[in-house]
């Protein structure tokens, strides 16, 4: 009896694994809302949150191991056949993003449980809703559903951003909400234009339908794709749509900013899905519609962002600019529109997310020991733990700047290799290397001021105790994951290579989602004008 029950549960688990990364955080969040957030419930909330995120990480790893075999996991919600129902598709890229999300979320949550979650209401429930939106955006196989999950993650992020209150958070929060609402309006316009001209929003169906669209409809379709590039550019902080990011991330509380490190990657992920796959090289008349834009804008983003790194006066703002710089490098890799470029971009994206999240947490630990100087980059009182924090900072900085043998170096090397032989190679090399050098310069400047220019007369104004091992565990785990990426560079690059190859293989994707290849499922607008026919 028990054995059969266990069998049934295992079978259900296997069957529904693709939807679990979405369901688990959403159910956890609802459960947390039921518990309420009175002070005496907090230890229980923390335990539930950590267990839920750890479980999510396990599910994501299981999905990634499964995806690594090359199989596409297609989940039809409500068992409606695609493209009529909503499908969730887990391929190598989706599984990788799920693992990354959970791997960033777990240390960040651990850190937040050290005290930040007491400074506002419903932090843990919102954190879970944010994860639900992120995971949903990564597994969905439908453009409109992508919009819905964007909104889920955004609405949670609005509240998380102003977590901890304060004037500055509300000031940037208002602008953040307004910008994202305007972007959502553009998203809807783009999506409905695509529906009007391709007749579907299912990504697999679009992949086979877009190349068939010709004439005027193709022009509108291209305009819609570029509208979506603007929307995803806002999320990813692509020049010139990055203006909101530095102030917002610098104002957010440390764990929230660290979690937001993954939010820009949602924009990058969507650009990969839409502009490198649906409107990719095989898309007929609409092929590579983002081609002329992505590479130059990515490189320009990187250059502008290092200027920001050099001019930042506070550590969180410097790290926020580093986020933008990393997005620039990643999008330049995507903008090469080759499997090698995509693979490089994916590898670099994972690494930069981990490093940026760790840096946001380190910045706060550092600021806590500097008394009135706080997070400003100016001489302050001697630190309680100069050697430990200095070493962690050095490790993060070296990785962000791309010094060997850290993963930042491997990622940048892959981008450089991928660009060899194409017309824009000199530009890519010059910009990526300049960005790396200037990042190093900016971080060295910040580091030497923070760690070496002490003002002993201020001694005692900082926290004497230093950061507890418990709080330090979070950035150490994130940086450790980064170092692990270097150790496992071989298997990981094989995985990203395979992920890029899988994205280029539209036929298998269409076949897996829609069943039989080449069946034109719906074509709503090819009918003669209904004038005069009317209803019987």
């Amino acid at each position, binding site marked *: 009896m028990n054995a059969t029950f266990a069998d049934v549960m295992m079978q259900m688990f296997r069957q529904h694994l693709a939807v679990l990364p979405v369901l688990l955080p959403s159910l956890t969040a609802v459960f947390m809302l039921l518990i309420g957030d009175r002070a005496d419930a907090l230890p229980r909330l923390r335990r539930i949150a950590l267990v839920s995120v750890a479980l999510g990480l396990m599910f994501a790893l299981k999905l990634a191991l499964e995806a690594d075999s090359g199989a596409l996991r297609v989940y039809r919600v409500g068992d409606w056949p695609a493209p009529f129902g909503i499908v969730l598709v887990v391929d190598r890229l989706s599984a990788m993003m799920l693992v990354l999300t959970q791997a960033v979320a777990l240390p960040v949550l651990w850190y937040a449980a050290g005290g930040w979650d007491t400074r506002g209401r419903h932090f843990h429930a919102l954190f879970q809703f944010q994860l639900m939106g992120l995971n949903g955006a990564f597994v969905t196989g439908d453009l*409109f559903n992508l919009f*819905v999950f964007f*909104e889920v993650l955004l*609405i949670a992020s*609005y*509240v998380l951003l*102003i977590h901890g209150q304060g*004037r500055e958070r*509300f*000031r940037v*929060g*208002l*602008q953040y*909400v*307004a910008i994202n*609402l*305007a972007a*959502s*309006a553009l998203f*809807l*316009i783009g*999506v*409905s*234009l695509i*529906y*009007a001209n391709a007749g579907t929003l299912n990504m697999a169906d679009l992949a086979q339908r877009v190349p068939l669209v010709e004439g005027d409809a193709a022009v509108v379709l291209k305009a819609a794709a570029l509208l979506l590039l603007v929307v995803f550019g806002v999320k990813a902080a692509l020049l010139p749509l990055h203006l909101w990011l530095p102030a917002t991330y610098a104002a957010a509380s440390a764990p929230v900013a660290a979690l937001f490190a993954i939010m820009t990657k949602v924009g990058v992920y969507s650009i990969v899905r839409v502009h490198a796959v649906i409107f990719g090289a095989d898309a007929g008349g609409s092929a590579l519609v983002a081609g002329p834009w992505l590479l130059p804008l990515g490189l320009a983003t990187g250059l502008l962002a290092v200027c920001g790194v050099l001019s930042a006066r506070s550590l969180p703002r410097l790290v926020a600019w580093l986020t933008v710089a990393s997005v620039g490098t990643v999008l330049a890799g995507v903008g090469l529109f080759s499997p090698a470029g995509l693979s490089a971009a994916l590898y670099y994206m994972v690494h930069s997310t981990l490093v940026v999240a760790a840096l946001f947490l380190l910045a706060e630990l550092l600021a806590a020991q500097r008394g009135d100087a706080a997070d400003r980059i100016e001489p302050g009182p001697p630190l309680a733990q100069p050697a430990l924090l200095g070493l962690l900072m050095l490790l993060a900085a070296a990785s962000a700047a791309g010094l060997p043998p850290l993963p930042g170096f491997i990622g940048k090397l892959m981008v450089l290799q991928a660009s060899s032989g194409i017309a824009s190679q000199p530009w890519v090399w010059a910009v990526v290397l300049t960005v790396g050098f200037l990042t190093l310069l900016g971080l060295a400047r910040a580091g030497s001021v923070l760690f070496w220019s002490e003002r002993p007369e201020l001694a005692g104004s900082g926290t004497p105790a230093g950061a507890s091992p418990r709080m330090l565990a979070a950035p150490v785990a994130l940086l450790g994951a980064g170092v692990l990426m270097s150790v496992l560079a071989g298997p990981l690059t094989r995985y990203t290579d395979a992920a890029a190859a899988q994205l280029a293989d539209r036929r298998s994707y269409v076949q897996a989602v829609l069943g039989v290849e080449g069946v034109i499922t719906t074509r*709503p*607008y090819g*009918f*003669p004008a*209904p004038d005069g*026919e*009317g*209803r*019987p």
Partner: protein
Amino acid sequence: MEIVLACAIGVLTACGVWLLLRPRTYQVIMGLSLLGYGVNLFIFSMGRLALDSEPVLAPGVPTDLAHYTDPMPQALVLTAIVIGFAMTALFLVVLLAQRGFFGNDHVDGREDAE
């Protein structure tokens, strides 16, 4: 019919964008709402305009889109309306809190910024 709808969408969007670029939070939220209405009408019209036809299958009528209006955009617009409504409510809360903090309704929190 098309021209009326197109004008309505155009006017709503134009007003929305203009208000969105104004410096007062009240104008911004009105702008976002108007923009939302414009976008919702736009999604609705992307299913092509069909007079006197419904999105639900009726017995005895051939099941093609010549005899029905496309139900897809109607489902999409429903979702968009709900999400837009939630976002407006949330924005209102942020707006009020910001006003409480700064004592004025400027988007940058500064009275003399204009």
